[in-house]
C-alpha cells in the first residue's frame, strides 16, 4: 500500500486517497464548523466527555473463557486481579452458538472442541458456578450471549443467578451483545434462527431491559465482526448504523416503548481497532458524529445523553500473525493506541497467540499490561481528543463519514441490513475485500513483518498454542445428566411448553425465558424449541 516513490497512489484501508500532507484548506466545508466544538458536545466526534480519560479511564475488558465453568471463573478472577475492570463470560461456541446441549450429535462428533472457546453452560447451575464470587454488583459484566439466538438464554441465566443471589435486576450493569454480524456475517453457524426471528429477540431484549434493567446495555452492535470478516472501516461504520436503524425501526413499529429509550439502548456499540492507527482513530470519531446525526435527522432525537455514542473496541484478531507471535504484542499496542486516540470507552486487546489458539494466561496478562502501560505511563490519557484539529485527522474523519453514509445507503437499497445479510450481499462485499487484501499480502504490496518479509526459518521464540482443559466435555455431559435427573421435571416441562407458546405468539420472550431458566430448562431444549418454531436461516454463502 504505502510506497516510497512519490507518484505512487497511497490510500487508506477504506480506499481514501491520502495526500502527503494536509492543510486547513483540505478540511471539507461541511466539517469545518465541527472542528472547534469541545469534546462532550454535539456532534460528539471529539469525544464522549470533555474530561475524557481523566475522569473515566477506559475500561479494560478482555474476552475470556474456556473449559468448565469453574475454569472460566478462575481465569476471570485472575484477570480481575491483574487489573481488568470489567469481565466477559465467554460461552463454549459449539454448544452456545448453536443452542445445542453437549449430547447433540454434531457436538459429540467434535467432543474435544468442547470448552475450547468458552465455558460450557447448559443450565443455570453451570452459570452459577461460573459467576461464583464475581463482583456482579460493582463490575460491568458481559454475560456472554454474543450470538443472537443464544442471547436470551445467556442473559436470562446471568440475571436469574444474580437475582437468586439477592441482587436487584435494576442495579445490574453489563451487556450480552447479541450481535448479528457475529454469526450471520462473520462466523456463520451451522444452524441458527432466521434473521426476522433474531430481530424480534433483540427488540424483546431492548424492551425488557428498558423496563427492568435500565443500566444494562441490551444489545451491542459489533462492527468488529463485520470488519474482521473483511469490511473496510467506512463499510464497518455503514453496516453498524444500518443495523441500528433496523432495531430502531422495529421498536418504532412495535410502539411499546419510547424511541429515545430505545436509542439509548442501542447506543453502546463495539468496533474493531485495526492496524492503520490514524484511520482507526478517525473511525471512532466518525462513529460518534454519525450516531448523533442519524438520531437527529432520522428520529428527531437530540438529547445529548442519548446521541452520545459509547464505544467498546477490540483490536483486530485477524491482524495477529501465526509467524513470530511476539510481534503481535507490538501490533496489539499499535491498534490499542488507535482506539484510545479515537476516544473509546472500553478496550480489549487480542492475545499475541490469537492466530495459534485461545489466549494463554500469559497472553491474557500481556493484553492487560499493554493497556496499563498506555493508561498509566504514556500520558495518552491526559488530554481529550489529542488528535483534534489536525488537518489530516479532521479531513479523514469527514471523508470517512461521507463514504460510510454512501455504504449505508447502498445497504438501504438492498432492502436494509437484514435483507443484505439474507441475500448474501454483505458477504459478497466482505469476500471481495478479503480476496483483495489477501492478494496484496501475497504480492508483497502490503508488508506483514515476519510473514511476507523478515521471515525466520526457525524461530527461537516459538510459542505453542494453549489448549485449555481436557475434561470439559465429560464434565458437561455429567452435569447435563445430573440436571435432567434431579430437576423438578414437571416444572421444567411446563416452563418449556410455555416457552414454545410464547415463541409462537408475539409476547416478549424474556419473562418466559427467565422462568425457564429458573426451572432449570437446558440450552439444548430451548434450541430445539427454536428450531421447531423458527426453522433455520438460509445461509446465503458456502462456508
Amino acid at each position, binding site marked *: 500500500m504505502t510506497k516510497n516513490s512519490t507518484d505512487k497512489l497511497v490510500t487508506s484501508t477504506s480506499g481514501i486517497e491520502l495526500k502527503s500532507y494536509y492543510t486547513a484548506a483540505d478540511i471539507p466545508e461541511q466539517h469545518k464548523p465541527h472542528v472547534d466544538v469541545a469534546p462532550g458536545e454535539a456532534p460528539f466526534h471529539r469525544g464522549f466527555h470533555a474530561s475524557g480519560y481523566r475522569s473515566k479511564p477506559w475500561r479494560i475488558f478482555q474476552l475470556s473463557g474456556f473449559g468448565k465453568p469453574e475454569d472460566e471463573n478462575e481465569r476471570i478472577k485472575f484477570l480481575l486481579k491483574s487489573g481488568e475492570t470489567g469481565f466477559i463470560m465467554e460461552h463454549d*461456541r*459449539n454448544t452456545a*452458538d*448453536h443452542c445445542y446441549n453437549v449430547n447433540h*450429535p*454434531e*457436538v459429540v*462428533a*467434535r*467432543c*474435544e*472442541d468442547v470448552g*475450547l*472457546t468458552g465455558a460450557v453452560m447448559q443450565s443455570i447451575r453451570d452459570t452459577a458456578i461460573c459467576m461464583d464470587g464475581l463482583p456482579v454488583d460493582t463490575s460491568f459484566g458481559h454475560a456472554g450471549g454474543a450470538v443472537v439466538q443464544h442471547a436470551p438464554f445467556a442473559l436470562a441465566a446471568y440475571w436469574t443467578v444474580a437475582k437468586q443471589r439477592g441482587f436487584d435486576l435494576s442495579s445490574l450493569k453489563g451487556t450480552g451483545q447479541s450481535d448479528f454480524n457475529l*454469526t450471520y456475517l*462473520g*462466523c*456463520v*453457524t*451451522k444452524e441458527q434462527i432466521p434473521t426476522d426471528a433474531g430481530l424480534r429477540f433483540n427488540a424483546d431484549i431492548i424492551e425488557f431491559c428498558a423496563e427492568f434493567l435500565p443500566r444494562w446495555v441490551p444489545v451491542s452492535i459489533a462492527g468488529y465482526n463485520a470488519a474482521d*470478516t*473483511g469490511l473496510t472501516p467506512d463499510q464497518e461504520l455503514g453496516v453498524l448504523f444500518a443495523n441500528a436503524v433496523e432495531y430502531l425501526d422495529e421498536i418504532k413499529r412495535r410502539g411499546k416503548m419510547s424511541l429515545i429509550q430505545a436509542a439509548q439502548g442501542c447506543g453502546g456499540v463495539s468496533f474493531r481497532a485495526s492496524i492503520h492507527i490514524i484511520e482507526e482513530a478517525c473511525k471512532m470519531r466518525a462513529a460518534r458524529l454519525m450516531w448523533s446525526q442519524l438520531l437527529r435527522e432520522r428520529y428527531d432525537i437530540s438529547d445529548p445523553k442519548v446521541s452520545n455514542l459509547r464505544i467498546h473496541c477490540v483490536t483486530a484478531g*485477524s491482524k495477529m*500473525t*501465526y*509467524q513470530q507471535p511476539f510481534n503481535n504484542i507490538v501490533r496489539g499496542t499499535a491498534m490499542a493506541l488507535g482506539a484510545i486516540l479515537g476516544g473509546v470507552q472500553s478496550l480489549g486487546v487480542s492475545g499475541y497467540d490469537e*492466530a*495459534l*489458539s485461545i489466549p494463554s494466561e500469559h497472553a491474557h496478562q500481556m493484553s492487560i499490561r499493554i493497556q496499563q502501560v498506555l493508561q498509566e505511563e504514556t500520558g495518552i490519557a491526559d488530554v481529550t481528543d489529542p488528535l483534534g484539529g489536525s488537518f489530516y485527522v479532521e479531513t479523514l474523519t469527514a471523508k470517512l463519514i461521507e463514504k460510510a453514509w454512501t455504504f449505508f445507503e447502498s445497504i438501504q437499497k438492498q432492502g436494509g441490513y437484514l435483507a443484505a445479510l439474507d441475500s448474501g450481499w454483505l458477504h459478497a462485499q466482505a*469476500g471481495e475485500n*478479503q*480476496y483483495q487484501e*489477501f492478494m496484496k499480502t*501475497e504480492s508483497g504490496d502490503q508488508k*506483514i513483518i515476519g*510473514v*511476507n518479509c523478515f521471515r525466520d526459518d526457525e524461530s527461537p521464540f*516459538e510459542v*505453542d*498454542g494453549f*489448549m485449555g482443559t481436557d475434561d470439559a466435555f465429560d464434565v458437561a455431559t455429567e452435569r447435563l445428566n445430573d440436571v435432567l435427573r434431579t430437576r423438578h421435571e414437571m416444572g421444567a416441562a411446563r416452563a418449556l411448553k410455555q416457552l414454545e407458546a410464547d415463541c409462537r405468539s408475539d409476547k416478549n420472550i424474556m419473562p418466559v425465558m427467565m422462568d425457564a431458566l429458573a426451572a432449570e430448562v437446558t440450552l439444548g431444549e430451548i434450541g430445539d424449541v427454536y428450531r421447531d418454531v423458527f426453522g433455520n436461516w438460509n445461509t446465503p*454463502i*458456502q*462456508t
Partner: protein
Amino acid sequence: MENSQNRILMAKTGLDGHWRGPTIVARALRDAGFEVIMIGMANTDDIVTAAVDEDVDLVGLNIGGHIDVAIRSIKRVQEVRPSLPIFAGGTIPPHAAKQLQALGVEVYPPGSQLADIVDAAERLTGTK
C-alpha cells in the same frame, strides 16, 4: 487425456463458522483449474462419505478447533482411502502441526502463501 480436472474436497472440521480462509483458498484452487467440492462444516462421517463418493484426488481440511477432532477424521479417511493425500490449514499450533505431519498431512498455517497452497495441490494430485 481430455478433461482431466482434478477434484478436491474441502471441509471444515470444527463448528466455528469462519469462512475467510477456506473461501479464499477454494477460489484460488478453482482459478488454478481444480474442481472444488465444498461441504462446509462437516463431521467425520460427512467427510469420509464425501471423500469416497466424490472420488476426490485430494482432501483439504480447515481446522478450527482441537486437533484430535481433525485427527479422527484424517484417520478414518486414511482407513478407507489409504493413498489419498490430505492437506490442512487453519488455526494449527506448532505441536498440532507436528502431529498432522506425522500422519503425512501437509500443514499450511495462517500466513501461508496462496501460491504455495496451489503448488501443493498440484503436486499432491500430480497435476504438474
